[in-house]
């Protein structure tokens, strides 16, 4: 874990924590958000809205269970539609959280400290949303457990050659590890809340969750080892997860899916969309809860830079696909690319290029990176763009493959849309609960950024 390194910074970038903070100001500012008695009206309104949206999701799921997935727009040849598109989108979003908390931790990037907590939460909720789709897109969702290897009376086992099984393991592992990572990070702060809460229930509940953390030096020692090791494990994991998700396509034989570039380009895309989402969430939250001291322009600037970088990698991916289609000389691949450019879905394709490649280039400009509103808009643009990317990958490749006779057209039905927005409802609902009942910024890590945290050497 980072020991406080506060040699005076020469660079003129904004600080990662506003000056003049002490241990208690940090502690109180952050824990107040949770411990304050009356819930702010803004929160109630926001929560109500997202809860309503979540109900739309549940209604859709009910309808799907009762009537069948024929309610969606899918057909033969386009057997996958919004469900898989949105699944990949959510999983991708999740990646930023793990990246911030794990990879930046290993790279000793202090600025991560104030955003890693809710970035991790975001990961968790995003993966939860993503998890719904693989189950609900099954023709017979009530048999989803057949994808797990368990001894059964049929003597049957899953087919470990199928990327979908890899998915099952990857996603469930990812969910479990992210959960543990998040919880372990929370323990000391839960202890803080336990000790600062003045209601009996608060003390008990937070107390239970804090499992008796008392800040013992010995505990801290093992705690940090564990935290580092988790980070070390989460880093390859997060890369593997989107790699495997990309295998769902790369392992098949469809033109436009069967491509070796998919893993890196999916991972980059994931981080791209993930950071966009962190930004989408961070900007309003810091504003609403007045946390500008902790989530400073420095953070936004850095995130914008990461977006720019990953965005360029993604752009390279698109370019590569097109190049290989020509260079590879496979007629089906060639047709696919032409079909993307000029076919029935050209609108979505060019919109995608605009959102993911053209517009984000403004991030080269420092004034933009320093402009909160601009950044917020850019983050939304990229979120949309990345959803479109998956839409293009899934639908365009399927709707016209090898035999012209079986070509078709796909369009999402109302149930596709309600499921998409419904899942956003679930995501926001969980997020609102999180910011209300848990510290959205890691308090104990913020303390280490306070100047006093430094141990000055003095003779015995």
């Amino acid at each position, binding site marked *: 874990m980072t020991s406080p390194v506060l040699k005076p910074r020469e660079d003129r970038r904004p600080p990662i924590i506003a000056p003049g903070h002490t241990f208690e100001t940090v502690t109180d500012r952050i824990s107040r958000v949770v411990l304050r008695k009356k819930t702010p009206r803004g929160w109630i309104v926001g929560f109500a809205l997202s809860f309503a949206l979540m109900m739309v999701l549940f209604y859709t799921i009910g309808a799907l269970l009762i009537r069948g997935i024929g309610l969606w727009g899918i057909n033969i040849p386009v057997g996958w539609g919004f469900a898989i598109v949105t699944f990949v989108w959510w999983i991708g979003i999740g990646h930023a959280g793990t990246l911030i908390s794990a990879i930046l931790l290993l790279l000793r990037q202090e600025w991560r400290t104030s955003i890693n907590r809710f970035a991790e939460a975001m990961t968790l909720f995003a993966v939860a949303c993503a998890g719904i789709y693989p189950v609900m897109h099954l023709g017979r969702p009530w048999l989803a457990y057949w994808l797990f290897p368990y*001894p*059964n*009376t*049929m003597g*049957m086992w899953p087919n470990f050659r199928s990327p979908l099984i890899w998915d099952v393991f990857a996603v469930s592992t990812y969910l479990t590890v992210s959960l543990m990572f998040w919880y372990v990070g929370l323990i000391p702060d839960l202890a803080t809340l336990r000790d600062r809460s003045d209601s009996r229930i608060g003390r*008990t509940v937070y107390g239970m969750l804090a499992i*008796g953390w008392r800040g013992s030096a010995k505990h801290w020692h093992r705690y940090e080892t564990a935290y580092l090791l988790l980070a070390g494990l989460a880093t390859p994991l997060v890369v593997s997860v989107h790699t495997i998700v990309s295998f769902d396509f790369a392992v098949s034989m469809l033109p436009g899916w069967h491509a070796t570039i998919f893993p890196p380009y999916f991972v980059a895309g994931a981080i791209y969309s993930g950071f966009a989402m962190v930004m989408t969430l961070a900007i309003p939250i810091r504003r609403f809860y007045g946390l500008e001291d902790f989530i400073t322009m420095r953070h936004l600037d850095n995130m914008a830079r990461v977006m720019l970088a990953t965005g360029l990698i993604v752009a390279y991916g698109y370019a590569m696909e097109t190049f290989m289609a020509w260079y590879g000389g496979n007629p089906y691949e060639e047709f696919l690319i032409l079909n993307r450019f000029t076919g029935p879905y050209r609108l979505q394709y060019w919109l995608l290029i605009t959102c993911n490649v053209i517009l984000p280039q403004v991030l080269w400009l420092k004034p933009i990176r320093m402009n909160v509103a601009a950044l917020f808009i850019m983050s939304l643009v990229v979120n949309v763009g990345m959803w479109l990317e998956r839409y293009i990958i899934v639908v365009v490749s399927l709707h016209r493959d090898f035999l012209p006779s079986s070509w078709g057209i796909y369009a999402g039905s109302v149930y596709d849309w309600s499921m998409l927005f419904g899942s956003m409802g679930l995501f926001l609902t969980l997020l609102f609960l999180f910011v209300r009942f848990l510290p959205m910024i890691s308090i104990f890590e913020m303390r280490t950024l306070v100047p006093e945290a430094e141990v000055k050497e003095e003779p015995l």
Partner: protein
Amino acid sequence: MPQVFHRSTNTFSRVSIFGFLFFVAAATYGLALLNRSSYVTEAGVAREQPVPFSHKHHAGELGIDCRYCHTSVERTASAGIPSTQTCMNCHAQIWTDSAVLEPVRASYRTDSSIRWTRVHDLPDYVYFNHSIHVQKGVGCATCHGRVDQMNLTWQESSLQMEWCLDCHRNPERYVRPREEVFNMAWEPPSNQLEIGRELVRAYKIQSLTDCYTCHR
């Protein structure tokens, strides 16, 4: 004051953690058992029948051959359930006035079927063929058990897929000489395995574990 919990909670919390893990494991195991239990498979449950027909009496004590009633067992997929006619072949002469047999006589008089309760019921997506099994030296008793000792008939085996697979994977453990197929009393000899292997060769028995063997 920071001390929220009582001393005991330390032990309690740890116990509950292990307890939970144990509970999950136990539940899983229990479910697995349940799925194979006779409650689910309904194996070994004697079924009430409109007429308390006793295989024990007919097949066992009187020694009537299976094929006297289950006529098509050697020719077709289904073994065949005897018509009332078949019952009356004998019961026109004997037990002509026993009350128990009234439903049979009634059925014959009114030419309306006796509605037997089904004992062996495979799912609709499973296609089992009696004739080929008989042909390949699978004895009646191998699947149906000692029917000749059942008063009311019950289902002997689980009829679950893993049970079918067991024999389809290593038939040599279960096959018997064709002439013994209908012999209820036949016991596998001590050297069943080697005899089995010979029979498998002689009868050209394949070990069929393809899905389409049973599912269509």
